[in-house]
Each structure stands twice: as C-alpha cells, then as structure tokens.
C-alpha cells in the first residue's frame, strides 16, 4: 500500500521545506500537508485523515506532546503511521512518544528517503493487523 498523503508538523520553515522536498523526491504523487504547530495540525486533521504524520516536538503554542495527548483524546480515527521527527534523541522523550499506539517511529532530523521508506513499510504492516510488529 502506497502513502498518498503526509501531514508535516514543524515550526521551522526550513524543516518543512526539507520534508516537502524529500517527500517529493520519495514519491511525487504524495500530497504534503503543512502545519506549524500542534494546534494548526489539529485543525487540518478535523477535515482529513492523512496516511502519515511527521511530527516535531519543540514547537510554540502547542508542542508535539501536547498535540499527541489531544489527538489521542479527541480523535477516534488516527493516522495509521505517526513518526516523531526531532533534532535530538532523548531517551525519555522517545519512550513518552512511543507510548501512544499510533506513534510508530522516532527519527532524527533531517528527514531522509530511508525514513520515508520505513514509514511506507510500517503503513503496510498496520493495514494488516496480524503482522503488526510488537
């Protein structure tokens, strides 16, 4: 199953640009949605459910964790693959993010084609619940 749409959430325009460029390089067919913080992302998600979300942690207004909390609480249908994309690895952050069932992966910036390929595989797995990694 191919990824058709990805929501990228980041407050840094450069990072959004990198994501958009890399996604286009990975598959020009994928539709890229943008949000600059958690609240904007929630607004986008109320109208559409993308196949994947790429989420930064440190953002003004509503950060990545606040977003995950609200997304888990308010929405019954979640994007099948949510990947955290952050500039530094911190053990506690990683564990906290992966405790949400829809958070499938945790990447370090900048986003690469390999990251996107992994996300695509994860999407395949999650569409077939039996093979879901656990």
């Amino acid at each position: 199953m191919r990824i058709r749409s990805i929501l990228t959430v980041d407050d840094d325009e450069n990072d959004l640009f990198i994501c958009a460029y890399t996604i286009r390089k990975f598959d020009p067919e994928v539709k890229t949605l943008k949000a600059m913080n958690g609240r904007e992302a929630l607004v986008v998600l109320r109208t559409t459910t993308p196949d994947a979300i790429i989420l930064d942690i440190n953002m003004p207004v509503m950060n990545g964790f606040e977003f995950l909390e609200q997304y888990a609480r308010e929405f019954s249908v979640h994007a099948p693959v949510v990947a955290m994309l952050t500039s530094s690895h911190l053990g506690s952050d990683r564990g906290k993010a992966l405790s949400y069932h829809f958070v499938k992966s945790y990447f370090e910036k900048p986003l690469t084609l390999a990251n996107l390929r992994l996300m695509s595989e994860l999407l395949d797995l999650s569409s077939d619940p039996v093979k879901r990694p656990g």
Partner: protein
Amino acid sequence: MHYERFGKVAAQAISWICVAIASAVLAAWLTRSIALVQIVPTLFAMQFNTSLCFIATGLAFHLAVANTRRPTLAIVLSAAAACIPLASLIQQIFVVDLGIDRLLYDPFVTVGVDHAGRMVPNAAICFILVSAAIIMTAVRGRNSLARVLCGLIVFVIASSALLGYVIGVESSHNWRPLAQMSPQTAFCFSLLAGGLVFIGAREREYPRSTIAAMLAVVTYLLLLLFAYMEMPHQNALAENLQDDGSNPRSTLLGIVLLSGALYAGMFAFSFRSSQLYRDVAGRLQESEKRLAAIIETAVDGFITIDARGKVLAVNPACEKIFGYRADEILQQNVSMLMPTPYHEAHNQYLENYRITGRAKIIGIGREVEGRRKDGSTFPLDLSVAKVELDHQVIYSGIVRDISERKKYEKDILEANAELEEFSYRTSHDLRSPIASSLGLVGIARDMIDTGDTQDLKQVLGRIETSFRKLDHLIQNIISLTRTKAMEEAESRIPIAQTVRETLERLHYMENAERLRVDIAIDDELTTMRRASRFQIIIDNLLSNAIKYQDPVQTRPEIRIGATVNSGNLVLTVADNGLGIEPGTEHHLFQMFKRLHPQHSFGSGLGLYILKKSVEQLGGTVAYNRLQAGSLFTVTLPEKNHHAH
C-alpha cells in the same frame, strides 16, 4: 563516704566508752571497798543494775548502729537491758518492791538513792527510750524519725543533768530527793543519745545543725526551769550553812556563763552561716548571670515549659522569632506558637508522653512548623530536653527559624530545575539549525547533481537563516552567562542616547525600517548602572518590539518612555504589534518559551534574559496587554539595591 566512715567510728567510740565506764563502775562495786566510797562517793551513785544495763546497751548500740550486721543479737541485748529499768519504774510508780534492786547484787553502800541498789527514774526512762531506739534501728536497719525523737528526749534529760553538776542545779540530776543520776550516767546517756540523733542523719536528710541548736536551746531552757524551781529552796538553805557550793549566787553566775556561752556559740554559728550564704549566693548569682548572658544573646530561641505545656521562660530571640513580647507568651500554653493541627494536638502529645514515656521529639529534634503572632507559619528546627527538677519536670526547647534556609533550598532546587531545562533545550536547539543545514546542504547537492538549479539560491538562503538562527542562539547564551557571572562597575548612562544608538544598531532586523519610533525621554535623564546589563535590557526590549511587529499593521510603531517616579527609574516600551495570546502570559518570561506560531526565529531566551538582567539590577519587569500590542514596563530602583 568520708562522712559515713566518721559516723561509724563515732558509733564505735560511743559504745566502747559506755562499756568501759560501766565496767569500771561494775568493778568498783565488786571490790566492795569502803575506802573507794570515801574517796569518790559519786562513783557509786551509778547503781550496779545501771552499770550492767549500760554494758548491755553499749554492746547493742555497737551491733545495731555502728555495724548493723547482727540485728537479732542487738535486739536481744536491748530487750534484756530494758527489763530492769522497766521493773524499777513500776516499783517507783506503784510503790512496791519486786526485789529487782538487789536481785543480782547486794549493795554494800547506798549513794544518792533512797532504796539500796534501785535505778533512778530518770535513768530508767532514758534506758527504755535508748533500748527502744536501738531495737527500731536493728529492725529497720537505718535511722528513723522515732529513733531521732527518742534520742532527743534522752539527750535533753542527760545533758541537763550533766550541766546541772557543772553549775550546781541539783534538781536537774535529782528529779526528787535521793534519786541522783550520777555524772557518769548522764555522760554515757548524752553520748548514746547524740549517736542516736546524729549518726545516719544524712540518709534521712534532715538539718543537723538546726537540730543541734534546738537541742542546746531545749537543754538550756530545761536547766533554767530547774534552777528557777530550786532558787527559793537554795535561798533558805544558804541562810543556814554553806557547804557544797550550791548557793544562789554561784548558780546564777553559772547560768549567766552558760547563757553567754550559748549566745556566743549561736552568734558565731549564725555569722559563719551568713558568710557562707553570702558566698554561695554570690557564686550562684555569677553563674546565673553568665548563663543568662548566653541565653539572652543567643540567636536561637529558648523556651521552657512545664509538664502541662505552660510557658515558664522565653529569651529575646524567641520574641523575635515569633513576633510576640515575652509577657504575651509567659504563662500561656506553648501551643499558641503552633499552627493547626499541632496547636490542637499538643496537649495530647504531652499527655501521651507522660503516660507512655515514648518520646517523639525529646532528645531527637526535628523540623516542625511555627506560628507567628501575625498568623503566618514558618519552618523551624526544634530540639527539646527534659529537665527533672526537685519538685517538677520541665521541658526546655531550643528553636531556630529556618525559613531562610528553606528559601535557599527552594531557590537552589529551582535553579537546578532551570539548569536542567536549559541543558535539555540547548542540546535540542543548538542541534536543530545544524540538522536543518545538513538537510538543506543535501538538497543543494541533489539539485546540482540533477541540474535542477533554479531553486538553489533559495536553498542557500535557507542555509544562511539556519546559521543566523544558530548564531543568534549562541549570542543569547553568551549574554545570559554574562548576565549571571559578570562583575562590573557602575557608570552614568544617558538613557535617550542609548536608546537611539540601540535602534540604529538593530536596523538590520527584518522590517525594522517599517516602524515609526517615538522616543519620549528627556535628553538630560541619566542613570547610574552597570552599563552592559542596562544595554542588554534595552536591546531585548527593542528587538522584541521590532521582531514581533504586526506585518498587516499599516502603521507599526514603538513608543519608548523613561521617567523617574518616586525614586524608581521606569522604562516603558509600548507597541502595536502582535501581542501575545491571552492565557499564555505566565510563560512569557520563562526560558525557551516561544509564543508566536509564525515567528520561529526567536531563541525563546529573549524575555528570559530581559527578566534576569532586570532582577540583577534589583528591579522588576511587567507585561500589559494593550488594545493592539503590548506594553513592557521595567522598574529599576534608583538607589541601587544590587541583587546578586
């Protein structure tokens, strides 16, 4: 220990002297020598029975009082010795002859008594009392009140008789005519009685010197009474013939001398005790003063309470700590110094301790809460000691106000948390622009490889902004450390000029030229500050206003003012920019809080640095929402209270 040994030696000496004197008299009786009677008739005034009783009593005294080792034998001896005087007394009272007087020995001569060989009544009474006292001592193994009383009576009787011999008062030893207590009998009884009264006195802790004085006085009075009763009789006698020196004049002289001696003795005694008292009182006062000086000047509070919790004493430090005057605390329950729920429970604590003896705080010390007069509570260190006095138990507490220490602890914890936050955020934020640049460099290379170079310039521009962002963050971190660490002398700063120069310097900032700037500051206004810190404050206020201007506002502006208001320098920067969202104000001056969604250029440190710098100069910074935009007010005390 010394006293104990002295008592023992004295008791032994008394018993042996008694036994020796009685044995001598006994021997004299056994010689039946008429010649001896003619030389010392008084020797035979102690009857055979009496001397026998003295030997038994002397031995019993030794066993019971000096040794306390063989009480049974002492009791048997005393009881045997008491039988003869008891029988003599019965004969005397009921005027019968039971044959006791001559049972053991038939006297060959009769001196001082009307019945040959009969013990005189005063000696009989003395024997009965002494025997009773010895039996009591043997049974109980120690001195007792009854024994002391017996001893007192015997002593008064015997010593007055003895003194009567000295000053010629006959009735003191002859209670009725021809019933003479011989001087050696009186002497032995005095010794025995003295021993009964004073040996072992320390065990019972009664005032020995007072008793001795009382004995002297009572003996003296008794003697006086005998002399008074005897005087008319002596007068009549004196008119006829003078023989044995017992004339009224010599008796009077004797009494005067005795009075004088007694008075002199008492005077010397009272003089010595008063001196001793003054000495002791002086030393006590000095040690009290020394102790008081320590307690009065102590930084810690001292409180003494009784077993019910009533405050007995407090020191000045206590008044300072709790805000009460001493007279407001004294006699009150100490629970008034405790907040709820300790206030209500304290009496129960004391009661529990009294019942169970299980200390929760005594001798341990712990951190508790205190309550000041104004009702505020504060943490304090409390240690309590139990003091057992003669008549009551009191508790002495030492309290130390530790709110300062607690505050520092809290400050340190906060600073530590802030530092952790700082390292967490810097590790993230320092890497963030580098990660972006790496990603962008990868894209640029990809563009060159694929020959798709039309957007290359834009990507390079993005790389540049990333590095600018990194540079800005590093600059901020540097100024933050400088705010914290730098020592600097104060200089006079022209405020209006500084503002203008700063605005010129910030002109490179995006859209800086769009702003209309209104500076309402007197050109003459200056302030004495540490220049670099003041500069950091101005920089942050102005760059903030430029950065967060509203892009859709057609006439963006900044109004900058500075006045001196009641000793404070008040700096105001108002703008009609973006402002901040209501409800997020409390994040405004926190580290790494960026509140503007579309403007990610900030490091999140600007207002934090502003706040820290203002605090370093002892001032405050406040934010107010305007209808359009923000108003920042920085207040710096003109009299510089340097906070470090």
